[in-house]
């Protein structure tokens, strides 16, 4: 297997477009995943009986094969980016929901009690005490969900989307390895860079976790 470097230099514009589209699909999914998980996690954390139900449901969704999800969505949203994003979002839920619930659980009872005793109302306690303290665990979930989504985008090639995944089908159909290799390398790079950025964001957001110099 040799790499055809001239193919790469001849397709830089296409590669850039595909990479951006790939990343967009993954990040949009994580964004909506968080948007859905946060309120659900708060409910699961506060209302014990609903906790098992919500976590179980997200587990069941996770076991649906990815292609099946896209196929199931076709009659609703068709061959569009929306289908890709919905499919990916469903998968992020299992990690994001579980980690957010666990993050909220990890906040010491003593700290919540102190907030209440100082006269902080429940919503403010959630926003300024519980969520910040749960952040490290939530961010661990966001990192997994992001990397997972980046690797899953390619599956959406079956419905005509799929970002860098299109390079795989292209390469296989023409029995031409270069696009496949380039696709794999770019996907990996995206995952590594995105993860590093999330680590940096977490560092900035949690100054109390830093070791003192």
């Amino acid at each position: 297997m040799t790499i055809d470097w001239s193919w790469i230099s001849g397709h830089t514009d296409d590669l850039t477009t595909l990479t951006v589209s790939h990343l967009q699909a993954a990040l949009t999914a994580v964004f909506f995943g968080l948007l859905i998980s946060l309120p659900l996690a708060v409910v699961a954390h506060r209302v014990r009986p609903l906790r098992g139900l919500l976590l179980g449901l997200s587990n069941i969704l996770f076991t649906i094969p990815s292609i099946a999800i896209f196929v199931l969505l076709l009659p609703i949203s068709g061959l569009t980016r929306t289908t890709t994003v919905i499919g990916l979002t469903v998968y992020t839920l299992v990690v994001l929901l579980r980690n957010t619930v666990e993050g909220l659980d990890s906040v010491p009872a003593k700290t919540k009690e102190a907030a209440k005793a100082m006269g902080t109302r429940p919503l403010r306690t959630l926003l300024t005490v519980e969520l910040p303290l749960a952040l490290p665990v939530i961010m661990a979930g966001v990192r997994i969900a992001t990397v997972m989504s980046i690797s899953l985008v390619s599956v959406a090639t079956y419905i005509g989307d799929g970002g860098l995944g299109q390079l795989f089908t292209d390469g296989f159909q023409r029995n031409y390895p270069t696009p496949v290799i380039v696709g794999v390398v770019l996907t990996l790079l995206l995952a590594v860079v995105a993860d590093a950025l999330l680590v940096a964001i977490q560092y900035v957001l949690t100054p109390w976790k830093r070791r003192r110099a």
Partner: protein
Amino acid sequence: MIQFDAVHKRFPNGTTAVHDLTLDMPEGGVTVLVGSSGCGKTTTLRMINRMVEPTSGTIRVGGKDVTRQDAAELRRSIGYVIQQSGLFPHRTVLDNIATVPLLLGHGRRKARARAAELLETVGLAADAGKRYPHQLSGGQQQRVGVARALAADPPVLLMDEPFGAVDPVVRTQLQDELLRLQKELNKTIVFVTHDVDEAVRLGDQIAIFRTGGHLVQCATPSELLARPADDFVADFLGAERGLKLLSLKTLAEVPQGPAPEGGAWTLVLDEADKPVHWASQDAEIPVRPLKNEDSLLAALNESVASPTGLIARVDAAGVLTGVSSRDDIHTHAGQAHTEARVAV
């Protein structure tokens, strides 16, 4: 300032935590609630700021029924110090202290300025303000906890075993600081502890609770030690309660005379006339000079340790004013005791 009127608290599981409590906590005084665990002392404290709601009866703070006020607003008007400080781990020390002023809408700059002022009040260095709680020692965290409770200058301070988790040396320091602060601030303080010595040191009045949430006796420390209401109180105060009573009496009235000369032991002074040690031909025993405001208990202790049975008395500057004998101290201690026990 704080009045409990026939207050009852039964938890959903059927246990009675507080039984028919009627108790007055006077303004500007320290009321200590003591008793073994499960006696309802913490529940009593937590009903004042509605962290626990009473089953029946009324609690008034400054004349107003607490259950008729908005719980969050009530809590902002009452300082609360918890065991192991309960600081917010994600906020700097300064922002921790500024919590209540911020909730009251004082604005960040003003709240931080007030917090910086309080750091000094509770004896912390200014640079501690930028640190996070986990970077401080247990004793320092506890000081931050006190500063946080004082931030909005509430008239009432609730303290739930605030010094329970620090070592004895630091605990004594923190108790001293609290007494010093209280002299300046004159808050109405309700203090929960299971430590009798702490109660005797800090309390203007002590309320002793028995399991099942019964208040057994509420009295000043010396009254309690001299005349416990029943065997339960006497047992709880311990076998040395007579000595504890002496810890409340001062040395001021014990007569003193000139230091002896020519005996086997001589009291050696330094060039400023401050006592250094007792010296004989072949030994030196260090001396701990006492001031008028030191307790009779300290005097008794020192006289036992002294080779002559004499204690060195000094003025505020540490200069020798005279000596007192073991007999004089003993006679005085006995009198103090008898007086306390027959007082009306």
